[in-house]
C-alpha cells in the first residue's frame, strides 16, 4: 500500500512538472513571437499574423524551444537569417545607436531648456 502511495505521488509530481514546463515554454514562445516582426505583413508581429511566413516562424520557434535553445539564441538565429529588422527590440550597435540615443538626447535637451526657462522666470 505504501509503495502504491509513493508511486501515485511520484506519478502526480512528474505530471505536474511536465505541465509546468509546458506552460513555461508556451509563455516563452508567446514572448518571443510577440518580439518578431512578420516580414511580409503590414506592421504585425509573427504572434498576431496568420501568414505562411508567420506560421513557419512559429513552428521554428517552437522547435528551437523544444531543442533547449534560450531566448537570445533564437533571436540570434533569426537575426542571422533575416537581419536586425526581424526583431522588434533592436540591439545597441553602430547601426542603431541613433535610434537608442536620440530620444535620450532630445529628453536632455528639453530638460536643459526647461531648467533654463525656470531659472529665467525666478
Amino acid at each position, binding site marked *: 500500500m505504501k509503495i502504491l502511495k509513493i508511486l501515485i505521488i511520484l506519478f502526480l509530481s512528474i505530471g505536474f512538472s511536465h505541465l509546468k514546463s509546458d506552460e513555461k515554454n508556451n509563455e516563452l514562445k508567446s514572448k518571443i513571437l510577440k518580439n518578431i516582426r512578420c*516580414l*511580409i505583413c503590414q506592421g504585425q508581429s509573427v504572434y498576431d499574423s496568420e501568414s505562411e*511566413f508567420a*506560421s*513557419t*516562424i512559429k*513552428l*521554428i520557434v517552437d522547435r528551437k524551444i523544444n531543442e533547449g535553445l534560450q531566448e537570445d539564441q533564437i533571436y540570434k538565429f533569426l537575426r*542571422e*537569417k533575416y537581419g536586425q529588422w526581424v526583431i522588434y527590440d533592436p540591439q545597441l550597435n553602430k547601426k542603431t545607436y541613433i535610434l537608442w540615443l536620440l530620444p535620450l538626447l532630445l529628453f536632455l535637451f528639453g530638460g536643459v531648456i526647461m531648467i533654463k526657462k525656470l531659472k529665467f522666470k525666478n
Partner: protein
Amino acid sequence: MKNKFSSFIIIILLSFCFVIFYKSLNNTNIYIPKIKAKKNIPIFEAKDFNSSTYLNSESIFKEDTFYIVNIWASWCVPCRTEHPLLMRLSKNQSVKLIGLNYKDNLNNAKKFIREFGDPYSQIIIDNDGTLSVEFGAYGVPETFLIDKNKKIIRKFIGPINNKIVEEIRSIVK
C-alpha cells in the same frame, strides 16, 4: 537673440523630422534584405522529390559549381511566370538548378513539373517551410545564387525576370 536661437533650433528639428518622414514615405513597406556578406548555405537533410529518399546538403551541393536554389510551389502563380526563365537558365552548363518545393501537395507539384517542364537537376521537398527559413527566405518564389565555395551570394525575392537572368549569367560565366 535667444528667441532667434530657439526658432532656429525648432526649424532645424522640424526640417530633420520632415526629411526623415519624407524619405520613409517614399520607401516601400516591403522589407528587402541586402546580402552584403557571403553566407554559408545551411546544413540540412531533406526528402528527394522523385525518390522520396533523404538527402543531405553535402550530397546536393558540391564545390566548384554554381547553384541556383529556387523555392517554388504548384499553387504559386508567380512561379508559373518565372518558370520559362528557369527553363532557359537550366540550359546553361555553368550552373545547376536545385528546386525547393515549398508547402506543396506532391501530386500537384509533379503535375506542375510535367506540364511546364523540369529545369531542376534536383528537387527537394520542404513540407513545413522550415528549410526555406534556414535559407533566409520568407516567401515563394525566391531564388538564391550559390557560388563555388557554397556561399549564398545573391538573393532574388519574387519571380525572376530577364534582368535577373542576365545578372546570373554574367556571374556564372
